[in-house]
């Protein structure tokens, strides 16, 4: 029995290749995601382990505001230089060195543009000499105040050489400053950077002034242990000496902590990739289900014979499931291998993009192997279960008669479809209306899954009229008519093939609807509210947003035709112990005049040095009213108490908390990150823009744009997101195309005799091919049509649910939808090529004799 199964499997391997390929692609996605994130994770580990390799014990002051990796770079609280001496006194300390190390040292390249790191920080540090890790490649260390050393990859990117003047933007100076490059350094192992981090080394006093903003202060202290003293002992001794205000960790701990936050991001990324893998696998499930159903139908006689000579129903199920296991196993192995390749390739590309991240060896984590086999096997077996059940119900008598497979009524499947769709709709409603008691995302995803399966079950019923309608387009020719009739003759098969395509197209359409609506709503709001004709801003290329010289604000104000100028500052702060984004405006009147804020309580036109404004939703969530006092801890300085003096209506464009401009000096970035310029009525934008541009000559990170360009730039991020999602969903669509090819190929095989007959009575080769092509196009356009409709529905539901979040306009991407339908027609033509060629090549005589 076992042998018979495997032999029949081998005989039908071609038919199973395509459906196996669907599993291979899905599994590839899964294992690729694991391999990629594992490799990157270990690469980061080694980067951090390296970066902290020369530290036995590290001392920092407790940060005043904790910032997570996603929110930005942690700013260290300055350590007074006296602490270094205290550490030196601790027994067992061989040396203690004060280190300045802060993000925000931005080198201006020879072309006048700021060099960005695309992710990693751009550190400004004090020069403490060469070490095992740091090695000067050229020149010497900085000795004078106007001398710097930078790392090799930064020097290469900036195209600068030792001896040249180099402009650098620093954290605490509002304008760029010119330095002489006196040296270029590299790292042990002949590396030009560590993980793409850009480093600029100043003399210690300059680094303190420009990167910390305080003389005689350091970001951290690097301690080396004397011989025979363990890192842990030394850590505990230093910690005891310094007390609770300081964090004392071993170098290993620091490296692990630094890597941990990045890894958290990676695991999130991994989950997203796995989500897309799930979509691909859902589509693959449809495809396998269909293939096995068709194969079972084609093997009716063979299976009936098995039954007649004594095989039990269970043995038949077993034999079909065994086939599924074999297909699943082979596909899992191939998928795992392909995934390792893809993961390695992506890791390599990522390493290049991240500015030369040295990759750790490609690793295959256990999760990748287990995940691949579990997913590959489970998906295949689950998909084959229904056809297996059907196979077991084939009566043995079918071995003796030509049993015409009766057109089973669609009643049951339609009822099941309605019920499942209903469940999906209810889950979606619960999830979107926020009634899912904390399980919002799983509820919504479950709803989408149920909706897809439900619609897929309803598809056979829908397919009859729709396919007839679509097919009517081709009915002018005989092959067209035959193709149309063929696509309508097995509604279940047509339906499930189309449903596979539906899933991919529906998700793309849904996401497009949501993002377009979000973009449209935000743009409309910004157009309506922001009353500034010019905006100063820059594209963020690392953890630190671009900033500019606050003096530009005053000078812009003085330009003729300028009515109001507002500089926006922002940072994470602790309000009564809870982290929140806070903002400060250089001109508080702009809140009303430029951003159209409306007061709901108190006065929002004025702001004293100890007063603050909050948005209405912040007031509600934090239980604040006019007169409430709030303890505010900024990144720097002591905590202060502010009194709420006004509340403004919350909108997409308002900040949760607005502090007075004087508070901005204690922000992590004490410079404005955006500037809004309102012109006097009648002033031409084109007249003022070049003048503002001239003012920004020393702040090369930012530029000035008119409002429309600014809004476009802001919403442009959504376009990038949309493109990424579309690329990831493309795989699901590719799998669906495989499904169409597979269904057609199997149908052609099944109809060999019929095709031979048609050819015998005079159908030309080209007409045969036309017939198959029409069938394919009808199926794929039907699938795309379903997808567009279902996707618009899902998208519209989400947009409706997000009304309160400010997505007020439902925008249906008609153009995109048209493109999808057109693409589907092309997909149909492409998918039909191989089956059509095969059909056209059928040997007429052989086909008629075919049994």
């Amino acid at each position, binding site marked *: 029995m076992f*042998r*018979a199964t495997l*032999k029949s499997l081998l005989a039908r391997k071609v038919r199973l290749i395509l459906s196996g390929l669907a599993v291979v692609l899905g599994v590839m996605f899964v294992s690729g995601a694991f391999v990629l994130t594992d490799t990157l994770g270990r690469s980061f580990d080694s980067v951090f382990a390296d970066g902290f390799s020369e530290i036995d014990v590290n001392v920092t002051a407790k940060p005043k505001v904790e910032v997570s990796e996603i929110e930005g770079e942690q700013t260290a609280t300055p350590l007074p230089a006296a602490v270094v001496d205290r550490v030196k006194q601790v027994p067992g300390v061989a040396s203690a060195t004060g280190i300045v190390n802060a993000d925000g040292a931005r080198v201006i390249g020879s072309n006048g543009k700021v060099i960005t790191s695309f992710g990693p920080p751009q550190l400004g540090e004090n020069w403490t000499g060469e070490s095992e890790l740091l090695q000067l490649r050229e020149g010497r260390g900085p000795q004078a105040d106007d001398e710097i050393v930078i790392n090799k990859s930064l020097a290469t990117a900036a195209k600068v050489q030792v001896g040249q003047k180099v402009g650098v933007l620093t954290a605490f100076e509002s304008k760029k400053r010119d330095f002489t490059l006196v040296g270029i350094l590299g790292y042990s192992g002949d590396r030009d950077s560590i993980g793409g981090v850009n480093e600029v080394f100043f003399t210690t006093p300059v680094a303190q002034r420009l990167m910390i903003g305080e003389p005689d202060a350091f970001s951290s202290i690097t301690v080396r242990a004397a011989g025979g003293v363990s890192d842990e002992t030394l850590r505990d001794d230093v910690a005891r000496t310094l007390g609770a205000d300081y964090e004392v960790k071993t170098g290993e701990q620091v490296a692990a902590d630094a890597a941990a936050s990045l890894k958290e991001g990676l695991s999130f990324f991994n989950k997203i990739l796995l989500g897309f893998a799930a979509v691909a696998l859902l589509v693959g499930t449809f495809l396998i289900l269909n293939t096995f159903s068709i194969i079972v139908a084609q093997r009716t006689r063979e299976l009936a014979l*098995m039954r007649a*000579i*004594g095989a039990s129903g269970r043995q038949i199920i077993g034999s079909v499931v065994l086939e599924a296991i074999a297909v699943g196993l082979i596909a899992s192995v191939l998928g795992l291998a392909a995934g390792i390749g893809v993961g390695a390739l992506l890791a390599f590309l990522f390493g290049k993009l991240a500015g030369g991240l040295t990759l750790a060896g490609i690793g295959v984590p256990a999760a990748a192997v287990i995940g691949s086999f579990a997913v590959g096997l489970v998906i295949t077996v689950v998909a084959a279960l229904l056809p297996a059940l059907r196979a077991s119900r084939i009566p043995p*008598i079918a071995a003796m008669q030509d049993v015409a497979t009766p057109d089973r009524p669609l009643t049951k499947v339609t009822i099941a479809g309605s019920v499942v769709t209903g469940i999906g709709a209810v889950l979606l409603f619960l999830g979107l209306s926020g009634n899912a008691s904390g399980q919002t995302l799983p509820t919504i995803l479950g709803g989408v899954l149920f909706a897809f399966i439900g619609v897929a079950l309803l598809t056979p019923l829908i397919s009859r009229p729709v396919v007839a309608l679509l097919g009517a387009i081709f009915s002018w020719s005989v092959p067209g008519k035959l193709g149309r009739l063929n696509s309508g003759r097995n509604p279940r098969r047509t339906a499930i093939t189309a449903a596979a395509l539906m899933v991919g197209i529906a998700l793309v359409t849904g996401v497009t609807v949501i993002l377009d609506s979000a973009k449209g709503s935000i743009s409309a709001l910004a157009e309506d509210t922001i009353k500034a004709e010019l905006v100063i801003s820059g594209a963020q290329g690392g953890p630190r947003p671009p900033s500019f010289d606050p003096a530009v604000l005053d000078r812009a104000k003085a330009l003729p035709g300028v009515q109001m100028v507002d500089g926006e500052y922002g940072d994470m702060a602790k309000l009564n112990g809870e982290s929140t984004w806070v903002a400060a405006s250089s001109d508080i009147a702009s809140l009303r005049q430029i951003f159209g804020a409306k007061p709901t309580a108190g006065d929002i036109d004025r702001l004293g040095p100890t007063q603050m404004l909050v948005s209405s939703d912040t007031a509600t969530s934090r239980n604040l009213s006019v007169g409430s006092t709030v303890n505010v801890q900024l990144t720097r300085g002591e905590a202060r108490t502010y009194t709420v003096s006004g509340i403004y209506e919350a909108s997409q464009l308002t900040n949760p908390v607005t502090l007075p401009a004087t508070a901005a000096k204690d922000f992590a970035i004490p410079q404005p990150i955006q500037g809004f310029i309102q012109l006097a009525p009648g002033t031409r934008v084109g007249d003022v823009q070049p003048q503002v541009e001239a003012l920004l000559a020393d702040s090369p990170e930012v530029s000035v744009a008119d409002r429309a360009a600014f809004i476009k730039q802001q919403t442009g991020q959504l376009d990038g997101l949309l493109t990424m999602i579309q690329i990831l969903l493309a795989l699901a669509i590719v799998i669906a195309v495989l499904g169409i090819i597979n269904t057609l190929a199997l149908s052609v095989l099944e109809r060999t005799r019929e095709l031979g007959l048609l050819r015998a009575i005079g159908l030309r080769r080209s007409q045969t091919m036309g017939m198959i092509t029409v069938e394919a196009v009808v199926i794929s356009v039907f699938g795309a049509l379903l997808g567009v409709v279902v996707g618009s529905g899902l998208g519209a539901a989400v947009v409706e649910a997000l009304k309160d979040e400010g997505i007020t306009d439902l925008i249906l991407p008609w153009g995109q939808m048209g493109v999808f339908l057109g693409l589907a027609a092309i997909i149909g033509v492409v998918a039909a090529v191989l089956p059509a060629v095969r059909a056209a090549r059928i040997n007429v005589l052989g086909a008629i004799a075919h049994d």
Partner: protein
Amino acid sequence: MTATVGQQAQAAARANDVWKVYGSGEAQVIALRGVSAEFERGRFTAIMGPSGSGKSTLMHCLAGLDSVTRGTVAIGETTVTGLGDSGLTKLRRDKVGFIFQQFNLLPTLTAKENILLPLSIAGRKPDPAWYDTVIDTVGLRDRLDHRPAQLSGGQQQRVACARALVSRPEVIFADEPTGNLDSRSGAEVLNFLRNSVREHGQTIVMVTHDPTAAAYADRVVFLADGEIVSELIEPTAETVLDTMKKLDAPAEVGN
């Protein structure tokens, strides 16, 4: 009318007042009208009758492939009527063998694997002596590693016969076994079936409409319009043909 050939105490297969009705109302077709018959052990019985007489239906019902509307069917000691799927499966495994008109061999398996398939499905080992006897009787020893596509029609049918014989079933049902064969191959197969009855005491029930084929049997039962209308013991092709001619006339009027 009831066939009167039930003298032997133990029949290999038995039908008792079997009715088979397909459909209902206007579309109702009565395929069998109270058929009672016994098929003795160790004999070769042919069931004959014109198209639509119910001969295939009778065989399907006897073999437990189709359910009866009324009456009972038994094979050996086992009452087939009322058995569930697992009971029927066991019956097919242990007591029944089939030979089909279309041979119905698995194209992916070799002749040997096809022959042993029923045993491997049941998870049993073949009795080597009996296996050798069967292989030699059907004369396929040099063809065992060939696939069905590499065998002639007659050879394929001999493989199918060997497959039916190898598990030594209580009764073998053959459905037009020579229908797809030329006359020489047909004669080979029929000789072989007759020999397995004479030499090894196998019981065979064969449905056919070919008088020459029926002449190989020990006994012929004639069906018309769902009833047993006649029977012949030790038939010859001529006596079978004569009986058929008599049956055909009223049947055509009936249509």
